[in-house]
């Protein structure tokens, strides 16, 4: 037996060439890595001084702790143990507010990274060229995971540096803060490595990865709200359970992350050897020989192509609404345990506690629902960039039909997902309370004009500036920033006013302005018309 054959025989051969692939992958993803790492670390670095400044004294932090210790707020932040340490530790306050979001962003980064380095290359046959070289079957996955581990460590290191300015912990606290993110990164790299083996195409692999993240956030939220075991089911939860910057600070929950990461990598490696190149573990099914009768227009095609996204949105919003609803149901018990002073802080505009929680949940539902509408518009752009739309554009279809039908599809998606989110919230949070049920229903409807403005803006951007895809994300991210961090970051009035959601009023905690709703609807209609005009005037460029 020759040396090479022996090497292949004992299994090392499947990893041959990992080093070469590693250099290649690093080079190809250097911009991706740079922007994601700079984005997450930079955001953290900017927020540290803002929060330190805003909550300088113990009294301020204790007051803030009162507003944050409700189940509703805990479900959107982290375990209550942090809140108990607010007074003595700015770091605890910071970690409590930020960990869920920065860990979620980190997870998104690694889901996208591993998919693009593995399944995306295999799907487009780019890695076929590489596999024909003396490179092992597992080398690309191995090197993608090495890139991920490296990126996770660098990200963790930078976050640790960013967190050194926070008071309240001991010397190891910044390191633990960084390591909490590293752990989330490697867990999601491992989970995505499995997802990439299951399906033949990259978008499904990304979908599985993001679904795992969605479940993690839900479990963490549910567990943190009630202080129960559900947090232990969540990779994001494991990082939160380190109680970083609190007196109970501990490292060992990250061992759970490490074990799950190693376990999922082993599973993924086993799967690679059990499947054919280009195939998934789940075989592709044969489809229909003829189209269903309904598939006969460009609009029908658009709805067909975005069907999966619409269902993902509906399910996500129902779950989100119901999860928040369960928190809402427990709001009264929580209020009973508060002192009069704490109740006063929570008292928004003289309304009751439930109404003010409901207001927060309704606006979060609306922003997440709008995200799905924005994604639908993004699909329209993708039809153009990958050239699939060319066959439709050459058929007797006006520009209003294609790509114009992505506007109604996006409006439908955002509207429907927002409504089911409201329904889920009302059904699980206000069952037996007809008055609150009605208020949640109205509050959900009130969000619609703002959602429409955002979608119509994104559509107009697609029509006039098709290459500026970042504009879509900027618009959506801005509305998110204003809702979540607007008060926290002390954004100026005019900057908040750019977001259409800023004009809705806080119903049911406060009143809403009917005039604003009418104006927003008119703006949405004008933006939509402007978008259609742009679509008629521009070139369609397919590759």
């Amino acid at each position, binding site marked *: 037996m020759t040396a090479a054959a022996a090497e292949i025989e004992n299994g090392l051969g499947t990893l041959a060439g990992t080093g070469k692939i590693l250099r290649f992958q690093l080079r190809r993803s250097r911009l991706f890595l740079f922007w994601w790492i700079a984005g997450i670390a930079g955001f953290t670095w900017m927020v540290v001084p803002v929060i330190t400044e805003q909550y300088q004294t113990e009294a301020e932090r204790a007051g803030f702790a009162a507003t944050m210790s409700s189940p509703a707020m805990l479900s959107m932040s982290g375990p209550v143990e942090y809140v108990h340490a607010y007074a003595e530790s700015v770091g605890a306050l910071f970690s409590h507010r930020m960990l869920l979001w920065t860990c979620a962003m980190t997870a998104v980064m690694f889901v996208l990274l591993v998919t693009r380095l593995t399944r995306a290359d295999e799907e487009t046959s780019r890695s076929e060229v590489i596999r024909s070289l003396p490179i092992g079957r597992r080398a690309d996955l191995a090197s993608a995971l090495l890139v991920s581990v490296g990126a996770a460590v660098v990200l963790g290191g930078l976050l640790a540096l960013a967190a050194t300015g926070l008071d309240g912990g001991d010397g190891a606290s910044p390191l633990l803060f960084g390591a909490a993110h590293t752990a989330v990164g490697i867990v999601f790299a491992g989970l995505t490595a499995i997802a990439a083996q299951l399906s033949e195409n990259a978008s499904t692999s990304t979908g599985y990865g993001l679904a795992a993240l969605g479940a993690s956030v839900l479990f963490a939220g549910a567990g943190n709200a009630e202080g129960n075991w559900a947090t232990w089911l969540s990779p994001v939860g494991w990082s939160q359970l380190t109680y970083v910057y609190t007196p109970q600070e501990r490292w060992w929950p990250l061992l759970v992350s490490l074990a799950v990461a190693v376990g999922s990598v082993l599973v993924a490696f086993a799967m690679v050897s059990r499947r054919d190149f280009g195939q998934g573990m789940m075989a592709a099914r044969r*489809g229909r020989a003829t*189209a269903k009768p309904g*598939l*006969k*227009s460009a609009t029908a*095609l658009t709805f067909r192509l975005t069907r999966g996204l619409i269902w993902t949105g509906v399910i996500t919003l129902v779950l989100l609404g119901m999860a928040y609803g369960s928190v809402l149901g427990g709001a009264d018990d929580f209020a009973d345990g508060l002192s009069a002073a704490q109740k006063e802080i929570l008292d928004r505009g003289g309304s009751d506690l439930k109404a003010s929680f409901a207001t927060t949940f309704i606006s979060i539902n609306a922003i997440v629902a709008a995200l799905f509408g924005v994604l639908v518009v993004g699909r329209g752009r993708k039809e153009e960039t990958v050239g*699939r739309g060319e*066959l439709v*554009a050459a058929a007797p279809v006006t*520009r209003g039909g294609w790509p114009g039908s992505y506007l109604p599809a996006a409006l439908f998606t955002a509207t429907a997902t927002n409504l089911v989110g409201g329904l889920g919230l009302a059904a699980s949070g206000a069952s037996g309370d007809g008055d609150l049920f009605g208020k949640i229903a109205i509050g959900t409807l009130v969000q619609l004009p703002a959602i429409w403005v955002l979608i119509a803006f994104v559509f107009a951007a697609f029509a006039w500036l098709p290459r500026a895809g970042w504009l879509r994300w900027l618009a959506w991210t801005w509305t998110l920033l204003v809702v979540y961090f607007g008060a926290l970051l002390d954004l100026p009035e005019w900057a908040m006013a750019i977001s259409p959601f800023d004009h809705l009023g806080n119903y049911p905690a406060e009143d809403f302005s009917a005039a604003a709703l009418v104006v927003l609807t008119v703006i949405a209609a004008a933006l939509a018309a402007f978008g259609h005009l742009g679509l008629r005037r521009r070139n369609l460029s397919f590759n």
Partner: protein
Amino acid sequence: MNAVIRTENLVKRFGHVTALDHLNLEVAQGETHGFLGPNGAGKSTTIRVLLGMLRSDEGRAELFGADPWKDAAELHRRLAYVPGDVALWPGLTGGETIDLLGRLRGGVDKGKRDELLERFDLDPRKKGRSYSKGNRQKVALVAAFAADVDLLLLDEPTSGLDPLMGAVFNECVKEAAAQGRTVLLSSHIMSEVEALCERVSIIRKGVIVETGSLAEMRHLSRSRLRATLKNPVRGLEDHEGVHDLVADGLDIDCTVDASALDDVLAQLAVAGVAGLTCEPPSLEQIFMRFYGDELAASGVHEGNGK
């Protein structure tokens, strides 16, 4: 002449790049017109302007006498298009795609669709993502040939097909032509164009450098002449209609302008001819004449005649 396609001084720029530079193309009703040029010469850009996807910067483009930018959707009722690089929806099967494209045009002739699926040997139940390049092209070809339209715009439609399917494609184009349809066939496969097209336009750097029937083009070009003579002939190398002359004893090999043929043959006859072949230029040779300088620049000897 009743032109289905007509462009006058068509200009299309992408930033600093001029893709079409005063392009004049005319395709008469019922003809199968070859549109020749290498990659990047502007074939696909021309077709996309004719489809109303791209807006021209200068000049005019007409399809059935109307403006394709303004009346795109209406005009598309009368044509079918096969792109050079067919991208299919990953989640839709070939059959669903063919049906959808047919219905957008008003209806599917099921008999014709099934017959074409059979002839092109295409499995309609596979998902778009699992088709190879050739099979993706077949999906678009079946949809186009099944459509009851006046004009077929085919942009390098056979680049992924095997020779067997190439033959089926040639048959389908001939049938379409026999039914009186107009076909614009963009290609860089000369044999295909030679077999199918009566008229040809050669595009180079966004300009039509030659257009006409193949017979006319042959006439205007040089023929290759090889002869074995009985006695040496003199003065042939000085004749201005004779090129690339190689004389090896009594064997001569040269290319001759069409206009000089009778004169040269008369001189050869005087010397006495033992054997003689005279070939008209192939389309490839005509084509290479227009691209000779580019070939020379890339280090390839000019292909004309040799």
